[in-house]
């Protein structure tokens, strides 16, 4: 018996007991909807947490800081690793690492035109800038061979204020503006930005470093929005200058900078504390960014780095705990849906058993004219599977509707009290493609499982008793 005929026969027999089929399909539909909506809430929860973390940095990046890695009790794990070209090679050799970007950071006060403000400067190899997965909003990224140019984050312009305003503020004539207004990033494009650095114990040496702004990076409220990127050689030069007098340690400056960067602060503070145990060379990198292709790689690489004694930190590590909680929530929600679907499955079994009673004679005839056990079995499973399939498909449609309504309501709720134009809240119910596919396949599977018992009973029917005349 070929598959198409099988399905056609099954569909015909279902259609002839319309009312019952529709009711049974409704059961499966409700079950499927329950499961999908429940799981979609769990997934939505997961996703919104993930997005809020991603807004602080990519999940495909691990940051390796100087210093030792510590275990949960705070005991150092192995020796502190130095971050130099050797280490870079060592990291590149780890499986799952896609690219490695060493970086220096530096910073201080910068000026352009009549404006003044703090600038956090990161030195990267211009050739490696594309690894950071930035897109320019204006201008371009750093390119190989660049010197004395700079690419800034979109918020950097907001760190700068007019010289006159600063003076007024200092004299108390003007209260600092409570809400800082957003300035146009285009204002900083193509500007010549200068940084005055002082070196020596009494800041007796002064040097001016100048950069041409060649690009502004896309993305607001991200870590990089507040940073500026310059060719690594330029930043190296700045550091050398700063270190001339203070004798090699970069701690004071980099600590100050790291404090501003959230995540980095912890580890750098430790470096400060354990200065005696591991001296940091002037030419050592401030940190190394390790890039991977996806989150799962990030987790593996992050663990490998820790195993090798690196002091590494990644957003993906933080995600783990959150994922665990939301998995639990999903399991509970999914369980509620599963119970609903179980009830639907019992409905299918019941319908199919009734069908056997009605069709005893028909089944007998089919056996007499040459239907094998397998044919009869498949026919019943196909019917049950079709009930599952229709219930699953319609349930999925309903799920999308329910999910849409939930999101509409929750968006209204969440966007209230938020200034207009801020990042649109994503829905709390998300139905990814795999869930849709899974839901339908699962409904079919439930149908088939529910049909197994009736199918076996149908197979065992004696054809003789079925076709007896009396």
């Amino acid at each position, binding site marked *: *018996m*070929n598959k198409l*005929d099988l399905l056609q*026969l099954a569909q*015909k*027999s279902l259609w*002839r007991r319309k009312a019952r089929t529709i009711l049974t399909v409704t059961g499966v539909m409700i079950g499927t909807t329950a499961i999908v909506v429940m799981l979609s809430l769990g997934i939505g929860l997961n996703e919104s947490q993930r997005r809020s973390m991603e807004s602080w940095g990519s999940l495909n990046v691990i940051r390796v800081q100087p210093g030792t890695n510590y275990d949960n009790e705070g005991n150092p794990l192995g020796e502190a690793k130095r971050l130099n070209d050797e280490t870079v090679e060592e990291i590149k050799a780890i499986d799952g690492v896609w690219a490695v970007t060493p970086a220096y950071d530096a910073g201080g006060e910068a000026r352009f035109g009549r404006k003044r403000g703090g600038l956090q400067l990161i030195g990267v190899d211009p050739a490696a800038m594309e690894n950071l997965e930035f897109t320019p909003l204006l201008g371009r990224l750093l390119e190989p061979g660049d010197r004395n140019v700079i690419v800034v984050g979109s918020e950097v312009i907001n760190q700068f204020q007019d010289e006159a305003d600063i003076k007024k503020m200092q004299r108390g004539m003007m209260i600092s503006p409570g809400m800082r207004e957003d300035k146009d990033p285009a204002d900083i494009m193509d500007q010549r930005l200068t940084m005055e650095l002082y070196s020596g114990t009494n800041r007796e040496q002064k040097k001016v470093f100048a950069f041409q702004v060649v690009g502004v990076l896309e993305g607001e409220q991200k870590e990089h929005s507040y940073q500026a990127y310059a060719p690594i050689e330029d930043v190296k030069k700045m550091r050398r200058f700063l270190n001339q007098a203070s004798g090699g340690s970069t701690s004071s400056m980099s600590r100050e900078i790291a404090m501003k960067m959230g995540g980095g602060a912890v580890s750098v503070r430790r470096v400060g504390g354990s200065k005696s145990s591991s001296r940091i060379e002037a030419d050592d990198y401030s940190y190394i960014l390790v890039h991977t292709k996806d989150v799962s790689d990030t987790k593996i690489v992050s663990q490998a780095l820790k195993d090798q004694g690196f002091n590494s930190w990644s957003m993906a590590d933080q995600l783990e705990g959150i994922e665990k909680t939301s998995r639990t929530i999903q399991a509970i929600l999914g369980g509620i849906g599963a119970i609903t679907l179980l009830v639907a499955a019992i409905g299918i079994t019941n319908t199919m058993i009734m069908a056997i009673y009605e069709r005893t*004679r*028909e089944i007998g*005839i*089919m*056996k*007499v*004219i*040459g*239907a*094998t*056990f*397998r*044919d009869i079995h498949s026919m019943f499973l196909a019917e049950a599977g079709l009930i599952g399939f229709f219930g699953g498909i319609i349930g999925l449609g309903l799920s999308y509707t329910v999910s849409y309504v939930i999101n509409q309501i929750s968006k209204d709720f969440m966007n209230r009290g938020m200034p207009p134009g801020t990042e649109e809240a994503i829905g709390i119910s998300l139905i990814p493609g795999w869930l849709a596919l899974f839901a339908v396949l699962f409904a079919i599977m439930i149908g088939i499982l529910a049909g197994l018992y009736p199918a076996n009973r149908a197979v065992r029917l004696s*054809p*003789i008793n079925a*076709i007896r*005349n009396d």
Partner: protein
Amino acid sequence: MKVTALTKKYRIGQEIVTALDRVDLTVKQGEFLCILGTSGSGKSTLLHLMAGLERPTKGDISINGKTLSGMKEKDMALFRRKHMGFVFQSYNLIPTMTALENVSLPLIFDGSDTRERVGKARELLIQLGLKDRFRHKPQEMSGGQQQRVSIARALVNNPRILFADEPTGNLDSKTTKEIMEILREKVSQSGLTLVMVTHDNELAEYADRCIYMVDGMITQIVEKGARHEEA
């Protein structure tokens, strides 16, 4: 087909009913065999056993040297599908299917493609004078028409043996005659073997050979040499 010492016993509660008692019988290829007997004499039981629809308690049936008792359920079904056809007193058509669908059903199980099976089904229905009834459901047809549909269904797989259990039991004498003539013609034309159960002595005249049964045993075999020469 050779039937040897075929015995079938049924247990009803404590009682054991012997429906067939050591029946020996040979059915020749291409003959029209009629099984006659009173009600409860075991005619239908014999037919069912010969068709492999039931297992004998004892004894054996072999068709072309193949013994049925050694066959698996699945092979038996396949054997019926390929080589046997069935006609019953109560037509046993599937009520939700049209005439055309009913006739092509055996071919559906056999997995033949739609065009082929619809073609064959049409051809047979036309042959049996049901040209205008393709799309009719069983309850929209008379008894005689339904029986003709069921004969078409029985013949659609070009069987070697046709089993008929009181095929005219529900029909009036005129329709009975029509049906019997159709069956007789099929046997004479195509070398088909027909085993027909009836309790109507008059129908015996269509057959090549008649066996009479009483209480599960064959009591008499009547040959009609005139009709059947050799097979």
